[in-house]
């Protein structure tokens, strides 16, 4: 039975096993490959998307749970916080290999949507589940602070 939801503002419907991870659907069915597979067990954060406005590890989310929901991936991320984050990322060259960065940006944007001026502790708490094997953590934290200052005007 088809499962229907919205991805990046477009209504989509897929007919797959209800237990199929959302990540598989995004990448293999919808060809939205900006969201990455890292671990498959919610330990690394590379697969982070927004589901009804909240961060969500798509590798452990059954597609059945997405019925009727509003999903945003890195391809469709927009708004002042997203713009500020992506500009800050570019300004100080946050990525090294870049593999984890779509997940990092999805979480960083969600954080700024909820806390306009996060402390180091707020950032660490929000980003603790987004692992970067290039260890760009210092630049990630700096870029989030920079984005927050941009949003303050």
């Amino acid at each position, binding site marked *: 039975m088809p499962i229907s939801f919205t991805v990046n503002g477009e209504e989509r419907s897929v007919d797959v096993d209800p237990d199929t991870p959302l990540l598989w659907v995004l990448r293999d069915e919808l060809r939205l490959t900006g969201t990455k597979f890292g671990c498959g*067990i*919610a*330990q690394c954060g590379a697969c982070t998307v927004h589901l009804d406005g909240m961060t969500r590890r798509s590798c*452990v989310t059954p597609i059945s749970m997405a019925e009727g929901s509003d999903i945003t991936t890195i391809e469709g991320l927009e708004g002042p916080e997203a713009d500020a984050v992506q500009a800050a990322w570019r300004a100080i060259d946050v990525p090294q290999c870049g593999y984890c960065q779509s997940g990092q940006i999805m979480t960083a944007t969600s954080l700024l949507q909820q806390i306009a001026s996060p402390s180091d502790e707020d950032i660490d708490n929000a980003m603790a589940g987004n692992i970067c094997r290039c260890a760009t953590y210092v630049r990630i934290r700096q870029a989030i602070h920079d984005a927050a200052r941009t949003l303050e005007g």
Partner: protein
Amino acid sequence: MTRFSLSVAMTLALAAPLAAQDLRMPADFENIENETERSAALFEEMGKVLTHPRCLNCHPKDSPTQGDDMHPHEPPVIRGDADFGAPGMNCTTCHSSENFETTGVGGIESIPGHEPWSLAPVEMAWVDLSLGEICAQLKDPERNGGRSLEELHEHMAEDGLVGWGWEPGAGRTPAPGSQDMFGELTRAWIDTGAACPS
């Protein structure tokens, strides 16, 4: 070793499964003639459930633990203002409305889930308390969510998140017995005066 592979290796090294336990039923305590002593003994049996990792992991003072060995939650998470994690990393960032079986990579066979999924409030923290202290806390409406003993029984016997403890998904040892048995023990404990072990 990368941070990720180190964390997975630690998870594997620490994950020692518990043996499934059973529960004795109220009838097994009828030979204790003194009602107060029988009540306290019934609570001690309930304590097998209350102090089981399936329950204690989400009744912490601060951050939750996980696994049968109650290791720190990985990835690191905090309680947060609403017992629901930090902004940007809530419980539901990873936990769905039901258990989700993974492919078993990294020794994690399933991600636990239930609707709702959150920590017990901090006033209901049980970690490091004696069974007698947990008993006193459970009876105190200031620390049990404002519940009467009857409402406490309903919570133990029927609440879905409590019931998750017996259906925790692949890779986790269920709480001892069943929720029905736990409910019957709670009923008998209340009916005998809800005495606490010393």
